[in-house]
């Protein structure tokens, strides 16, 4: 989501008929091995802190597994949002005989042919981070719907269901962004008295967010709340500083930069929901277990965000919801799995020694992972 | 009836009036010379007829039918062909392709018929006995060969009206002869020819009549026999120019004593030849010879453009590996190719003037206006871009750029190429003044007459004649005559290559 800079699909791109990944049919991948797996990880975009944390997490998670021989080698390939390049990388990996492919797609819909090729060779395919819907594959992705649903719910509550807000969204056309916007729409439709004055794309870029916010500030006189997406919060704040006005109720983001700033602004009423780069590491854990032949519980798999008929997805809920004071049984914390509500204090502590750009991160514990399997 | 008739043609480029009132009429089978100072509008007239330039006013009749020429293509359809002073050849194409560029023969109406291109090309080149050039790319040809190809390209198009704009200035005598024969053959087939040239001799031997242009006007048209050289020159410059033609009587002194410049075992890489070269203080050294026999290589090598050379300047050893080093040693170089190697066309006169003195030698405080006036440049303000000056005036500024650095030795590579008589004289006087100050001048020229004139103006002079990269003859004293230069520059047996 926040990671990608590139549009990826919001419609189902998968060509074949609906089915559920591997379930039922006995999996053919792993070639019966129990260890010494060769894994290819094709990361579709490489350009911001979130993504590098994402890749780094995967590599860190792989280290112990490589040590104990479970993983023979992990090939990592980055492509700079170049579809052809990614397809070529996948092609190369397939031909070098990987057991499993982890893919963060450049474009959700552009992998059909190459994935078909991989499956034909009995290679396990796991999509991670940016969703994509292909039958016969698994997807381990962050729960974008929950991500903004929580924040929309929160802001609605803060405004007591009444007021004028502006939205600063991500990259128009991007899958994650679309899912999030739909979630927000869905929530706000329940609050008729909350008026969305404008919804401008901030491209997940602080500078863009800042100048867009400035324009909005000069255009609309009274803005009661700002529904804003990840990594752009500081841009919004700066727009207010420049206009020397005080920011209203606003959703924040999960970078330690913002968390620290927030801590330094006692009157700022905000929330931070994490969208963890760790999702890649989680995906690796699932990949290994699947390669080892473990079976998922029938209820573990949920509908793919891009294709409701395709049940092949493990949605990783936001690990943390940060509010000034922890508030586990707030209305916006309903039906979330493994999500902790922590206080700003705790959150900032978690960031000790981390850079401002770094994101509040977390992984599933082995136990949590196992709980998905039979 | 007239093959071509122009009435009151008028053309201005922005503020410049290139042509204000040009009128002439030519009969079929007539060869008409067009004579005029630089920028008097000859090429502009040619370009208008060629469809390259659009006239502001005026009427053009072809064979008594009025017609407005819309484009080069249209002009060619009307049977008008012009050879361009700047050449219209494509250096990356072969000779034969260039020859047929204007209508390429095809097979089955679609594809280029290469075989035919070669065949037709060869035919024409045979007549000009240049068939050895077929298959080469134009880039590989020498200047004179290129101009011959340009001429052949015109012939191939079977012109009804042919306009030849200053191609002969670059040609060997033999080649000029060939051009003459070809023109006469066209004359017999009733083609009308406009022949633009600065060379009187040619005009007298080739043309039937001459139209004189001055500042964009056709001032007169006369039969070639009616007026002599001086009369024509006076008409074109609007003032009496009897002084233009010197009578070279008396000997020319030869300097001796310690040389100013010594170039022991000077090597011309292109010819692989080696010889000693020296220049005395205050001496004029003319370099003569047919084009492309190493004259400009000689001066360019001395100026460090052909890699490092070892020189002795006033006894001191020095290694000149680049123009930069040469300038540091107080040498100067003037190229005849204004556009490519002379002017900074979009920059102002003062910038052009100060380029070396201020920016290379680091001496400031140059009184641009004074210098320009002293060089007799026609200019409005020192701030005007140099491209707004006329060719000759531009060249004066370029020369001024070097004179203000008062160089010990000045190398000139045909600096008066294509400059009219008056401007040329001014340049000569500038150089003489420099020599009188004790500097020396090494002067390459394609015009032997010019070398002889200069030699007689200078206190002491020698003329070196080059052939195939070697100095084949050194002329001094009484021997300095055009006849000697000509005979030396084409050694016996080499008259026809």
């Amino acid at each position, binding site marked *: 989501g926040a990671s990608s800079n*590139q*549009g990826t*699909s*919001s*419609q189902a*791109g998968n*060509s074949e008929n609906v089915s559920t990944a591997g379930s039922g049919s006995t999996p053919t991948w792993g070639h019966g091995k129990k260890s010494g797996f060769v894994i290819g990880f094709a*990361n579709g975009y*490489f350009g911001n802190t979130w993504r590098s944390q994402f*890749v780094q997490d995967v590599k860190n998670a792989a280290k112990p597994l490589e040590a104990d021989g479970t993983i023979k*080698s992990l*090939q*990592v*390939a*980055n492509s*700079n*949002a170049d*579809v*052809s*390049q990614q*397809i*070529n*990388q996948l*092609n*190369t*990996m397939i*031909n*070098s*005989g990987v057991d499993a492919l982890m893919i963060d797609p450049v*474009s*959700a*819909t*552009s*992998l*059909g*042919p190459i994935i078909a*090729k991989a499956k034909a060779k009995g290679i396990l395919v796991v999509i991670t981070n940016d969703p994509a819907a292909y039958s016969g594959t698994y997807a381990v992705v962050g729960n974008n719907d929950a991500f903004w649903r929580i924040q929309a719910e929160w802001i609605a509550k803060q405004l007591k269901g009444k007021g004028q807000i502006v939205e600063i969204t991500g990259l128009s*056309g991007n*899958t994650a962004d679309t899912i999030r916007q739909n979630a927000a729409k869905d929530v706000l439709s329940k609050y008729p008295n909350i008026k969305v004055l404008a919804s401008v794309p901030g491209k997940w870029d602080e500078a863009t967010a800042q100048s867009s916010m400035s324009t909005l500030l000069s255009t609309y006189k009274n803005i009661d709340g700002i529904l804003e997406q990840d990594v752009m919060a500081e841009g919004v704040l700066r727009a207010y500083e420049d206009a020397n006005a005080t920011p209203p109720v606003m959703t924040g983001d999960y970078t330690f930069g913002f968390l620290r700033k927030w801590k330094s602004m006692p009157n700022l009423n905000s929330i931070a929901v994490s969208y963890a780069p760790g999702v890649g590491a989680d995906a690796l854990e699932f990949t290994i277990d699947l390669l080892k032949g473990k079976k998922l519980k029938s209820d573990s798999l949920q509908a793919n965000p891009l294709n409701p008929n395709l049940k092949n997805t493990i949605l990783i809920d936001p690990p943390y919801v940060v509010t000034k004071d922890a508030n586990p049984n707030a209305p916006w914390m309903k039906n979330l799995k493994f999500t902790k509500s922590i206080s700003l204090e705790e959150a900032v502590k978690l960031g000790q020694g981390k850079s401002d750009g770094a994101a509040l991160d977390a992984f599933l514990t082995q136990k949590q992972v196992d709980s998905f399997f039979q | 009836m007239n093959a071509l008739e122009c009435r009151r043609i008028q053309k201005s480029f922005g503020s410049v009036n290139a042509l204000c009132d040009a009128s002439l009429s030519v009969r079929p089978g007539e060869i008409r010379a067009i004579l005029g100072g630089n920028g008097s509008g000859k090429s502009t007239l040619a370009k208008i007829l060629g469809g*390259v330039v659009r006239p502001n006013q005026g009427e053009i009749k072809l064979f008594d039918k009025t017609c407005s020429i819309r484009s*080069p*293509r249209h002009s060619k359809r009307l049977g008008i062909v012009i050879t*361009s002073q700047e*050449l*219209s*050849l*494509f*250096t*990356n*194409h072969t000779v034969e*392709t260039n020859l047929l*560029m204007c209508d*390429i023969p*095809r097979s089955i109406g*679609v594809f*280029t018929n290469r075989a035919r291109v070669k065949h037709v090309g060869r035919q024409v080149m045979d007549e000009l006995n240049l068939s050895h050039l077929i298959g080469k790319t134009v880039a590989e040809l020498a200047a004179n060969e290129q101009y011959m190809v340009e001429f052949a390209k015109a012939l191939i198009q079977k012109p009804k009206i042919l306009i030849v704009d200053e191609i002969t200035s670059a040609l060997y005598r033999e080649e000029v002869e060939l051009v003459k024969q070809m023109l006469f053959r066209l004359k017999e087939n009733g083609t009308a020819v406009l022949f633009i040239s600065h060379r009187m001799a040619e005009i007298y031997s080739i043309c039937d009549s001459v139209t004189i242009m001055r500042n964009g006007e056709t001032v007169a048209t006369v039969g070639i026999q009616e007026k002599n050289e001086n009369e024509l020159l006076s008409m074109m410059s609007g003032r009496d120019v009897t002084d233009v033609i010197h009578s070279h009587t008396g000997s020319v002194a030869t300097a001796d004593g310690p040389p100013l410049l010594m170039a022991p075992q000077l090597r011309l890489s292109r010819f692989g030849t080696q010889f000693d070269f020296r220049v005395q203080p205050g001496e004029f050294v003319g370099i003569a010879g047919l084009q492309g026999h190493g004259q400009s290589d000689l001066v360019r090598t001395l100026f460090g*453009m*052909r890699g490092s050379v070892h020189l002795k300047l006033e006894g001191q050893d020095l290694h000149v590996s680049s*123009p930069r080093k040469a300038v540091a040693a107080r040498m100067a170089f003037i190229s005849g190719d204004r556009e490519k*190697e002379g002017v900074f066309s979009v920059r102002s006169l003062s910038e052009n003037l100060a380029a070396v003195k201020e920016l290379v030698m680091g001496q400031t405080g140059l009184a641009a206006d004074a210098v320009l006036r002293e060089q007799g440049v026609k200019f409005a303000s020192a701030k005007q871009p140099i491209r707004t000056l006329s060719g000759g005036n531009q060249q004066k500024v370029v020369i001024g750029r070097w004179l203000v650095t008062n160089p010990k030795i000045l190398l000139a590579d045909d600096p008066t190429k294509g400059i009219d008589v008056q401007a040329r004289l001014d340049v000569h006087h500038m150089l003489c003044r420099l020599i009188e100050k004790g500097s020396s001048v090494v002067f390459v020229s394609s015009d032997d007459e010019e070398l002889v004139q200069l030699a007689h103006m200078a206190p002491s002079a020698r003329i070196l004649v080059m052939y195939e990269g070697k100095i084949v003859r050194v002329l001094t004293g009484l021997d300095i005559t055009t006849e000697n230069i000509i005979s030396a520059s084409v050694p016996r047996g080499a008259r026809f290559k």
Partner: protein
Amino acid sequence: MNILKWTTFPVLVLVIVMAVINSVLTPGFLTMSSLSGFLGSYAPLVCAAVGSAVVLFGGGIDISLGSIVCLVNVVFITMQGYGWNVLTSAALAVLVGVGVGALNGFVIGFLRVNPLLTTFSTSSVAAGVALWIMPTPGGQASMDFVTWYNGNWLGIPTPVYFIAVVWLLWLFLSKTPIGIWLYALGCDERKAFASAISVAWLQFFTYVFAALATGIGAIALTGSVGSGDPLVGLPISLNAIAACVIGGISLMGGRGDSFGAILGALFLGLVSTTVLAAHVPPFYQDLVSGVIVLLGVIGSVSLSRKPKLVS
């Protein structure tokens, strides 16, 4: 000696070297399936490079080809979405792309605006339209088409046919007078005009041709990705030019050979494959491939280089 004069020689060497390195690093590289996969993902760039080359011959430059790819891809998919058959929608899509080329050609040839800036503007026009038609990636190409593209046809990987078609288009062109005029134009625009060559039309034509070749490439790309994406082609814009230069084509115009462009494009592909096959750590992949390409260019330029100005 003469072979060294051939502008395509350096890149030919480069490609062979890279191919060898690859087949050493990945033994499976020279297998049919691997090669067809490789060609499948780089055929689009190859086609665009050939188009770009033709523009460069004529002394122009076109940085809008990537956006044209996006537009064609999006239109192609959308048409199929409306249930048109593959051929018609492909033809129509390519036509739309050619339209953009025509805009380029008109503005550059007839209105005489600088090509770099013109194509920069039109690239944002084309990309804009693509995003407008299809704000979010999606749709899907007909399965038959996709499987056909990613498989073999008459025993040869299908992408090869796309490359062949574009190459033949150029070959045909170069055998007609247009070929000659093109190099003349690249050598000197004014002289070309004076020699009765209709410069404006010729320039117009080069950009149209570039768009056509690129459009065909875009169809190929659609075959390899199987769906629509308004941003899918963007990297092609500059890669195509890089490919040409590595292929020994001069940006000054009038020099080079389209075959060089093809090899140049393949070289770029081979580099990214090699970097991966050599297990270069991810953080260094971009740097390494960048440096390899730079060295490649230095190699090809310094081998086929014009003499210096003053001499």
